[in-house]
């Protein structure tokens, strides 16, 4: 996780950061899953599912932006 952060901080280009962010989201999803296991509560798992569904959009919109910027 820290490695992701370092990538994020260093950049150097925008796609780097975006990818880092995306990876970060994945890590968050994973950590939530673990968390939900430790507390034995299913409710937390739903959060992970939701997050996994929308994480896609974040990356997509950044891609969209980069796309547009290059035009």
């Amino acid at each position: 996780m820290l490695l992701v952060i370092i990538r994020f901080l260093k950049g150097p280009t925008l796609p780097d950061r975006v990818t880092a962010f995306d990876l970060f989201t994945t890590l968050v999803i994973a950590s939530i899953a673990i968390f939900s296991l430790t507390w034995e509560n299913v409710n937390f798992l739903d959060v992970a599912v939701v997050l996994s569904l929308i994480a896609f959009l974040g990356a997509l919109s950044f891609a969209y932006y980069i796309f547009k910027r290059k035009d």
Partner: protein
Amino acid sequence: MRTVILQTSIRLLMPLFIIFSLFLLFRGHNAAGGGFIGGLLASIGLFTRSMILGVNNTIAKYKIQPIGIIASGLLVSAISVISPIFLGKPLMTGIWFDFTIPLIGKIGTPLFFDIGVYILVIGVVSNITFTLSKN
């Protein structure tokens, strides 16, 4: 953004978004979820679709008129708020029907209220995102 992979995947994902959002909506009273979360999820799905397949395409497919959706969402909520009045009870008094529906649970005005929220959120978010992307 019209890559084939994305286009295919969103077509596949769309039903998933909708179903999961409805699931969250109806389950909300008893576990994490609810109208707002469900509505947001559904509208994010719609939004993703419109980013990939185009706004007009999405509007055409789902016959979306944001202002109308907002109005109907508000109306559903408002009716569930007001209806107890006709039974001589204060606004928003929960009225529950006796029967339960599998998967959803008990039916009552709070549920309708939540459905109203769900509809409204879809309307609001699609209104915002569509006007933004059209502009």
